[in-house]
């Protein structure tokens, strides 16, 4: 479903990603962990071309998205993204946030889109906040709206970029609950996170990144139970 080969990314002279190769199967939940500055967020942002790719290839359902002829906007409708800082549109209500892309990009009918949006809000437990503005919501609520907004495009893949890192501790649970629900429903997900509990419980595979390389990848049990590399051990001993 996602295939990344020899991906490299530099910011100026600083090489952030050095030869990344990843394959994500349909319905798989891949969790990416690693110390800050390891390149895990950059890797995620390359999957929907929010970062320009320096070298290598990224395929989404066998379409090479690094090809100039590929319509990246079309690809992005299939690859939803949830950000650390939510990025909700602050001048629009919760409902308008969710409806904007289906209306303007998919050109769907308004009433149907509205009903679908309300259904999604119910799914993330925020049906009563439909007409609220993002600024009046808590962090956890904002992030759940952001997930609903991404789901409104009916994406085949969801990317999560540290979705709970900007939340107060007591809000983390409600967002992880929604993500677990999506995983159970069979959504293909790539999740960059520091939530090791989530990685262990929900992840089909865990990737440990450090200094722009994938150091180790394995099932959660194997990786957390018996890390093979020294750097993985060192990292896990600090966070677990």
């Amino acid at each position, binding site marked *: 479903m996602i295939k990344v080969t020899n991906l490299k990314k530099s910011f100026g002279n600083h090489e952030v990603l050095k030869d990344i190769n990843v394959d994500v199967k349909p319905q798989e939940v891949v969790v990416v962990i690693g110390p800050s500055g390891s390149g895990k967020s950059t890797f995620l942002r390359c999957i929907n071309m929010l970062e320009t790719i320096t070298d290598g290839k990224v395929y989404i359902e066998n379409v090479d998205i690094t090809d100039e002829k590929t319509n990246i906007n079309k690809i992005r409708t299939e690859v939803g993204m949830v*950000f650390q800082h939510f990025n909700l549109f602050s001048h629009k209500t919760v409902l308008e946030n969710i409806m904007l892309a289906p209306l303007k990009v998919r050109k769907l009918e308004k009433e149907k889109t509205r009903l679908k949006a309300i259904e999604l809000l119910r799914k993330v437990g925020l049906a009563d906040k439909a007409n609220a503005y993002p600024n009046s919501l808590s962090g956890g609520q904002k992030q759940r709206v952001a997930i609903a907004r991404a789901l409104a495009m009916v994406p085949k893949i969801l990317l999560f970029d540290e979705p709970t890192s900007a939340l107060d501790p007591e809000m983390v649970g409600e967002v992880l609950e929604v993500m677990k629900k999506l995983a159970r429903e069979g959504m293909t997900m790539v999740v960059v996170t520091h939530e090791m509990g989530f990685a262990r419980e929900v992840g089909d595979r865990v990737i440990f990144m450090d200094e722009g390389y994938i150091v180790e990848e394995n099932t959660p049990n194997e990786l957390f139970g018996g890390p093979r590399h020294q750097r993985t051990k060192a990292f896990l001993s600090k966070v677990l």
Partner: protein
Amino acid sequence: MDFRFEIIKEYAPYLVQGTAYTIGLSLAGIFIGTFLGLFIGLGKMMKNKFLSWPFICYIAFFRGTPLFVQILLIHFGLVPLFTGETNPILAAILALSLNSAAYIAEIFRAGVQSIDKGQMEGARSLGLTHVQAMRYVILPQATKRMIPPLGNEFIVLIKESSIAAIIAAPELMYWSRAEAGQYFRVWEPYLTAALIYLILTLSLSLVLNLLERKLATE
């Protein structure tokens, strides 16, 4: 100090006409300047350096030289060059519009760039094109932030329209100076002019305050 109201009374019809011209010049400057300013601001924001360069030069020139110099260049140089004769009204409108456009371009650019870059990324990640993201997400938020500095610029524009007096555009300051010259008086003509400008600028800021309050959602 005696204050001769009869001078003001005598000049009243000219002051009314002059005020009308002042309002007209200012409005023309505001509308043409805003339209041009948006265009120039967008031009300056273009990533391609060769394309944005002319816009950068434009802003540098019109912000970096006095309006006084600009209005003389346009009145005695530019307008006769194209029409074969001088035309103070046209020259005044041109100078005010071109000058304010440079400031408005910068207000516009600052407004757009003040919007958190996450808003653009959020929109693009949903499949919106750059133009759609600008139109539905960035510009509505930027516009709200642009109102206070734009209001400031419009007030400056009303006051600066008085410079048109020196090319004999028949606006408020032109008639006030005529009044002062005819009677060798200072207080009557210039205090009257000051009061009229004050009414104009205060009315405008009142309207802008109302608009700002109406658009506030945060």
